[in-house]
């Protein structure tokens, strides 16, 4: 190992000795390394943003899919209900038809009774 050199001490802590050109070169290197770190951080932010957007898009698609599923289920349910209640609705129609016929017959008979009573007078 080479012999020890004299150990001069800088009175300005934290600053390099030497000419301004060297100091400028050093500061340029510092800025370059810092900019590399900043670029890495920007890349990280872009990745996270893309991931967030991807997850957001995924969530939107998932939501739309769920809504479609819900519509289909609702339609299926309506069909089942319609089939289950078909006899009841047929009976209702029959009752309505019969009631309308009975109403007509009743009104006919009523009108005849009224007519006869007036003609007897």
């Amino acid at each position, binding site marked *: 190992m080479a012999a020890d*050199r004299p150990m001069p001490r800088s009175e300005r802590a934290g600053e390099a000795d030497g000419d301004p050109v060297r100091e400028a070169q050093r500061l340029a290197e510092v800025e370059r390394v810092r900019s590399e770190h900043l670029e890495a951080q920007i890349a990280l932010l872009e990745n996270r943003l893309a991931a967030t957007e991807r997850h957001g898009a995924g969530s939107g698609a998932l939501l739309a899919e769920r809504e479609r599923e819900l519509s289909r289920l609702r339609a299926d349910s309506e069909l089942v209900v319609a089939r289950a209640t078909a006899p009841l609705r047929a009976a209702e129609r029959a009752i309505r038809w019969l009631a309308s016929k009975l109403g007509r017959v009743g009104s006919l008979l009523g009108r005849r009774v009224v007519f006869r009573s007036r003609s007897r007078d």
Partner: protein
Amino acid sequence: MPAATRPPRLVFVHAPRGISDAGELLRGLAFEAAELGAEVSVAEDGFPAPTAGNGTGVVESAAPWRRKSPNESGDAAGGGHPIFVFSPRDSFSAGGGRAPSASQLRRSVAVCEAEPVGPLDVAYLHARRAGAALAVDHGGIALLRRHGVPAEHLPVGPSAAWQGEEVNRRIDVACLAARGFRNDRIVASFGPVLWRRRCFMLGSPDPTTALPAPTAAPRLPQGTERARLLATTRVVVLGLGQDSHHAEELRAVQAGQNGTVVVAAHGVPTGPLRPGEHMAVAEPRNLALVADALLRDEQRLTELAGAASEAVGSAPGLVEAAKRLLDLASGLSAAPRSRPRPSALIASGQASLSAVRDGIRERLRAPPNPRRVAQKRSALEKIADRRSAVNGSDPGAAVAVYETPSYADAAPRISVCVPLYEHADVIGRALQSVAGSDRGDLEVLIVDDASEGPAVEVAREFLEARPWLPARLHRRERNEGLGRGRTDMARVARGDLLFMLDADNEVYPTALGRLADALDDDPGAAFAYSVIEAHTDGRPRALLSSLPWDPMRLRLGNYIDAMSMIRRDALLGVGGYTGDIRLHGWEDFDLWCHFAELGLRGLLVPEILCRYTLSEGSMISITNLDSSEAWALLAELYPAVLGGAPMPIYPSPPPDEEL
């Protein structure tokens, strides 16, 4: 609390090296109980011996806030028998403190700052046998009730005991209580985001086993130290605890009370703080990005801090919890539990099973693996062959082969020592990280240890392109090992501070300056080290050197990486690094043990300032193939530090996971 009866005497019991949050909660409750007029004392060494004092074990009062109750008269206050208040999760027996006796437990109130679960079933045992139980978290209450313990809710609110005096907020980001491999990895990923910031970050005490370190000091600040930390911090990151987040509510209240902005992971209970209104939330991996963004937005930061202070200030204080505690204690004082609940029998069975499990674990760790021993021997023989290859008259001497023009005139304060063996592909990045350091008063010393590849040429080309960087490159004809290389560089270094940088590692621009400043601020420290982000191909993997200096923790293995700043006088004073081939890869561990044996100490700068490259073929990997011989040697060399310590286990971390 009935007005006619005297308040009971309360003894708050804390394990000497117990859980930090448990200590915080007990401290706050003790303060508030004393404010309410109760006689309060603190046992910091675990439960007192049952035979001591008045048959109750209480021998002294160490609480600075101890106050006599107004109607107290002599020894008869509160009926003479004290009521103990403790956290079941505190590991009394493991921490060196006395565990509670059955009669003491029947006169105790268990205060659970988190669920009494974990690797130590004794937490269950204590919670079940206690006379009464209070829990911060509703999940913990449900868990205790399922096991027959009528636990009640303990509301956490602000307390004057947790208030720190704000001087100036010099710490930008504090991360409390990261635990476990995964969360260590997340904290390691904070490095590239927060390296410019002033941080306070600690890693897991022992992520391999999750067992408490039996002899180590608490890693998180407690008491006035924690209050001071929170009062001087701008943003605190919560939600990186392992499995359970329940202790985070306590920290959130403490932070809000001290005007510190909380950034928490989703789903973390934060008491009175509401996301978006009083605090910010994010995915765990994005916590650092959100904290950094908040620090850039001073107005938003101020708004959140004010809103958090207001929210916590308007919440019911911890005094309400203290009142409930006194009620329970009064009841126990009048009629202590006479016998254990039936569930205690089940707990006893579990304790027996734990003993069997511990026995099996102990048996598994005992014998060295013959295959690994043979692998290690083969690797060491190759290294010995490399070192014995003689060429020239003094092949072990390092000869200066290149010196930059600025080297001769430089007056460095810091000497960066880079031992080089191969690593031609990464040495450029290591040197560039040093060249980009904020500190200009440094020199770079490189000793090539007879590399067969082009490492020397790569280093030389790098230096030739940077004539302004004071640097000298040495080369050895024969491989002499890492220890001698570092020691030789220490001898020729002109700076009084030496930074040890391996060729495959890097430093952030702020690293050297902050480590040097830390040593300047603490003249009694022999060396300073920072938290290190370990990565593989740029992906964060783990945290290294993430715990404060504690010589007793060395008994569990080396937890401080070689990448540190050492005072030159201290290093040369102990003769430098060891060159013993039996400690190949453990040179730094040997040095820390040597320092500890001599009473010298290290200093943790709790910020991520350095990066470490994890590789399969590292020197530590060779030594860890079979560490029994190295461990025995260290125990012999440093009996005060390692004497009688069992050999630790070095398991592998879990598989990599994309963050």
